[in-house]
C-alpha cells in the first residue's frame, strides 16, 4: 500500500511535512520511534496514517484531557467514526460500554490514569494493538516540566510482547530524551529530531526597573502595533487585570485561563480564530489545540518557568511561515516570582511527614486533598514516590527537584541577561546547533520591531446592536 496515496485520499495532502515520512516508515517497519516535532507540524499524522494501513487498533496515551477530546472531535469531523477517548469525563456506564466494545475502534485515546486500571489492562491484553503512541512523552521525565508519575508505568505495563512504541513530543532536552528511551523500555529507537529553531520567529527582550513599567510598555505597544497576539502571564488575576486595561483602551482583547467558564473558553478561541479578537491575555493554559496560523506576536509579561515552556509558547506564533515576534519582558526580581511559582506545586517536607502520619493512623493519605492540605497534582507526585522510596529518600529527591526547577528559571534568565545571540542560547539548550541566523534575529544581534510588525489598524469596534430576534434568525440561516 502506498503511503502517498493514503495521504492524498484520507488527508487531502499531496506531500509530507518534514519528518512525517521517515517516522511513518520506521513505525511501519515495526521499530520503536522517538519523534520530536514542533507543534503544528503534523504530529498526529504520524500515527493516524499508519492506523489506516494496519487495520488493527492504535492506542494513543495522552495526559491532556481537553486536548484529547479536541483531537477526537477533529477526527470525527474528518469522518472517522471509529475513534474514542477513554478518560475520566465518562460516567461509569459509558466507560463500561466503551471498554466492552473496545476492539471496534481504530483509534483509542486514553489517559494514563485510565490506562493503569485493571479492567482496562485486562481488555487491552486481549486486543491486537498495532501501535502504542505516547503523546507528550516528555511527561515521563521527572526532570521535565510536566512530570506525570503514571507515565513511568507505561513501560512496565506492556512487557516484552508489545507492538512498536511511537513517543511524540514537541520539546525535549537530551536528558529528557534519554529518560523517554529508558522508561519506555524502547529497543534502539529510531530518533527523528526536528530543529527547534523557528527562523521566522524573531526574538526580542526588554528590561525594566519596575513591574508597573512593563504594563505601560505593553499598553503602548499594543496600541501601536498590529496583532493578532498572545500575552502570557503567570497568574489568573493578572490575565483579568491586563485584559481589562486593554479593553478600556478599545482593544479587542480577552482573558483566558483554566478557571474560566467552559463555554467562554470556546467563544474566545472561536473569536480569536475568526479574527474578531486581536489579543488574548492568558496563562499557559491557552494555546493547546488552538490552530491559528497568523499569530504575529507573543509577549511574555514575565519570564516563564523554564525553556521548554518558553519554546512551546513562542512556537504558537507564525505558523503560516511569515514573520512573527516573541517579546520577553523582564523587571528586576521577576526570577524570584518565577521560582516561587515553579516550586509551589512540589510537595515539601511537611507534606511528606503528613503523608506518613496518615499512614500511621491507617487513614488513606489521599484524605490530604479533601482536607485541603495539598493540591491534587502535588499529591499525585508525592504518592508515586512514597510507594517507591523511603521518606528520607523522597525528601532528598524533592529537594533535588526543587533546585532543578530553580535552575530552570536561571536558564531562562540567561536569555534575559545575555549579550550573545538569544536564538543560539535557545537552540543550544535543546542540544542542537544553530546553522544560520535570519535577519532581525534577536535583540542581541540587532532587531527593529518596525521592520517586522505592521502599525495597528484602527478597526471599527463592532458592537452588535441588532435585536435578539435577528441574531437567532442569522444563526439559523432564516432570511
Amino acid at each position, binding site marked *: 500500500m502506498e503511503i502517498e496515496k493514503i495521504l492524498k485520499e484520507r488527508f487531502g495532502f499531496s506531500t509530507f511535512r518534514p519528518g512525517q515520512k521517515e517516522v511513518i516508515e520506521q513505525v511501519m517497519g515495526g521499530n520503536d520511534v522517538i519523534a520530536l516535532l514542533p507543534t503544528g507540524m503534523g504530529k498526529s499524522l504520524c500515527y493516524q496514517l499508519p492506523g489506516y494501513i494496519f487495520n488493527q487498533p492504535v492506542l494513543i496515551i495522552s495526559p491532556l484531557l481537553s486536548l484529547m477530546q479536541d483531537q477526537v472531535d477533529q477526527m470525527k469531523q474528518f469522518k472517522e467514526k471509529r475513534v474514542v477517548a477513554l478518560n475520566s469525563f465518562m460516567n461509569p456506564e459509558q466507560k463500561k460500554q466503551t471498554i466492552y466494545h473496545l476492539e471496534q475502534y481504530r483509534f483509542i485515546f486514553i489517559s494514563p490514569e485510565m490506562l493503569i486500571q485493571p479492567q482496562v489492562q485486562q481488555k487491552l491484553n486481549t486486543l491486537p494493538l498495532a501501535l502504542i503512541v505516547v503523546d507528550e512523552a516528555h511527561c515521563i521525565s521527572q526532570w521535565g516540566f510536566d512530570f506525570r508519575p503514571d507515565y513511568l508505568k507505561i513501560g512496565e505495563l506492556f512487557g516484552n510482547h508489545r507492538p512498536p512504541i511511537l513517543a511524540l513530543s514537541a520539546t525535549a532536552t537530551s536528558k529528557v530524551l534519554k529518560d523517554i528511551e529508558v522508561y519506555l523500555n524502547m529497543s534502539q529507537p529510531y530518533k527523528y529530531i526536528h530543529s527547534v529553531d523557528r527562523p521566522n520567529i524573531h526574538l526580542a527582550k526588554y528590561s525594566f526597573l519596575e513591574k508597573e513599567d512593563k504594563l505601560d510598555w505593553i499598553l503602548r505597544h499594543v496600541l501601536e502595533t498590529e496583532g493578532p497576539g498572545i500575552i502570557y502571564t503567570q497568574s489568573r488575576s493578572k490575565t483579568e487585570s491586563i485584559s481589562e486595561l486593554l479593553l478600556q483602551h478599545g482593544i479587542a482583547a480577552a482573558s483566558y485561563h483554566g478557571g474560566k467558564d467552559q463555554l467562554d473558553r470556546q467563544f474566545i478561541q*472561536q473569536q480569536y480564530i475568526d479574527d474578531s479578537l486581536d489579543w488574548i491575555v492568558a496563562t499557559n493554559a491557552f494555546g493547546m489545540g488552538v490552530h491559528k496560523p497568523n499569530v504575529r506576536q507573543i509577549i511574555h509579561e514575565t519570564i516563564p518557568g523554564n525553556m521548554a515552556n518558553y519554546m512551546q509558547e513562542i512556537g504558537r506564533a507564525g505558523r503560516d511561515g511569515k514573520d512573527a515576534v516573541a517579546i520577553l519582558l523582564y523587571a528586576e526580581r521577576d526570577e524570584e516570582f518565577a521560582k516561587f511559582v515553579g516550586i509551589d506545586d512540589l510537595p515539601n517536607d511537611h507534606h511528606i511527614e503528613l503523608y506518613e502520619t496518615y499512614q500511621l493512623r491507617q487513614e488513606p493519605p489521599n484524605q490530604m486533598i479533601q482536607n485541603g492540605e495539598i493540591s491534587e497534582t502535588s499529591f499525585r507526585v508525592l504518592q508515586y514516590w512514597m510507594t517507591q522510596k523511603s521518606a528520607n529518600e523522597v525528601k532528598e529527591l524533592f529537594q533535588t527537584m526543587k533546585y532543578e526547577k530553580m535552575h530552570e528559571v536561571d536558564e531562562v534568565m540567561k536569555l534575559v541577561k545575555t549579550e550573545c545571540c538569544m536564538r543560539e542560547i535557545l537552540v543550544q539548550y535543546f542540544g542542537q546547533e544553530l546553522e544560520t541566523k535570519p535577519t532581525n534575529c534577536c535583540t542581541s544581534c540587532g532587531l527593529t520591531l518596525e521592520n517586522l510588525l505592521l502599525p495597528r489598524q484602527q478597526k471599527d469596534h463592532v458592537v452588535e446592536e441588532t435585536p435578539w430576534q435577528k441574531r437567532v434568525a442569522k444563526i*439559523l440561516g432564516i432570511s
Partner: protein
Amino acid sequence: MIFRQILLQIFHKFKQERTISAPFHLLRGKRSGQTIQDVGIFQLHMYFGILPKLSRKTYDEEISKLIEEQYMTVSDEGYYILTAKAKEMNQTVDLPFNGWQYRGNEHLFFARLSLVIQSLSHKAYNQMSFLPIQKDPQVQEWVRKFLISHHYQERDLQQQLYEEIIVSLEQAPIEQHAKVIVMKRLTGYKIAGYTWQQLSIYENKSEMDIQFIYIACLHAWLNGITDKESQFPLLAAIAEQVRVAMPLSGSAYQTAQLFQQGYSIEQISQYRKLKRSTIEDHIVEIAMNNPRFDIRSFITEEEIHQVVNAVDDYNTRKLKILHEVMPNLSYFQIRLVLARGETV
C-alpha cells in the same frame, strides 16, 4: 449590585432567625433537611439553588462588604441583625427566578439548546462538520438522538425551532436586555458567542449580575415552555426533565414511597437502617413539597392551631422558643406545621 439585593432580600425574609451562612446554603441549593424546610417556612422558593457553584470565598467577600457598609451586624454565634439602612433600602429584586423548580438544570437546557442550534446553523449553511461547542459527552449524545428522532436531515427543523423560540421568548415576562444576553450566549456557523466579560462591558454591569439576569431569563422562558408544551413541542423536548416535578431528594423520595405503602416512621427507619430523625427530616420535606400530604397522622388539628397561634403570639419561627412554649409537642411536630407555612 443584584447579588447584594438578593442577599439583603433573603436576610430580610429569614427574619434574623438564621445565621449568616443560611443564604449561602440556600443559594447553592443544599439538600439538607434544614435548608429545605427553610425554603417552605420563609417562602424562599425562588432563590433555592440558583448558584450551585457559588464559592464560600465569593460569598464571604460579599458579606464582608455588607458589614463594612453597615447594612448588618453579626454576632459571635453567627446571627445577624439588619440595620435601618438595610431595611430602608428597596429590597425587591425584579427578576423572575424559579430556583426551586429548576435547581441549576436550566444550564442543562441551555447546553442542549446551544448544541442543537449550532448543529442546525451549520446545516443551514451546508456545513456538515464542526467542533461541538458542548463538550459533555452526555449532552452530545442527547442532542444527536434529538436531531435524528426529529429527522433534521429531511425537514426544515430550523424554521420550526426559530418560530418556537421567537414566540415563547417574546412571551417571557422579563426585559429585552435579558433576552439579548441569553441569545448572545448562542453560537453558530461563523458566529461566535459572547463571553461573560464581553457582555459585562456591553451591558455595563458586573459579570455576576449578567449571570443572574441570564439565569432569571432562562427560568422565565422555561416556565412558559413547560406550561404550554403542546404549543412549543421542540423546546419542550429540549427542556425534558429540566423542571423538577416533585422536588425531593433521592433519599426522601424512597421514604415517601414507603410511607405511601403504609409503613410507619419506626418501620421505615428500621428497614432503611437510617436514624429516626433522618426519616422525620424526609417527612417534613415531603409535607413541604406536596400540599396534599396530610400531616394530621402526626399531629392533631387542635395542636396545629396551637402552633400557628404561638408563631403569631411570639412573632417567631425559632424552633427552640416554640418548643419551650409547647413542651407537649415534639420538634418534629412543630416543624411539620411550620413546613406547611400555615398562618392564622
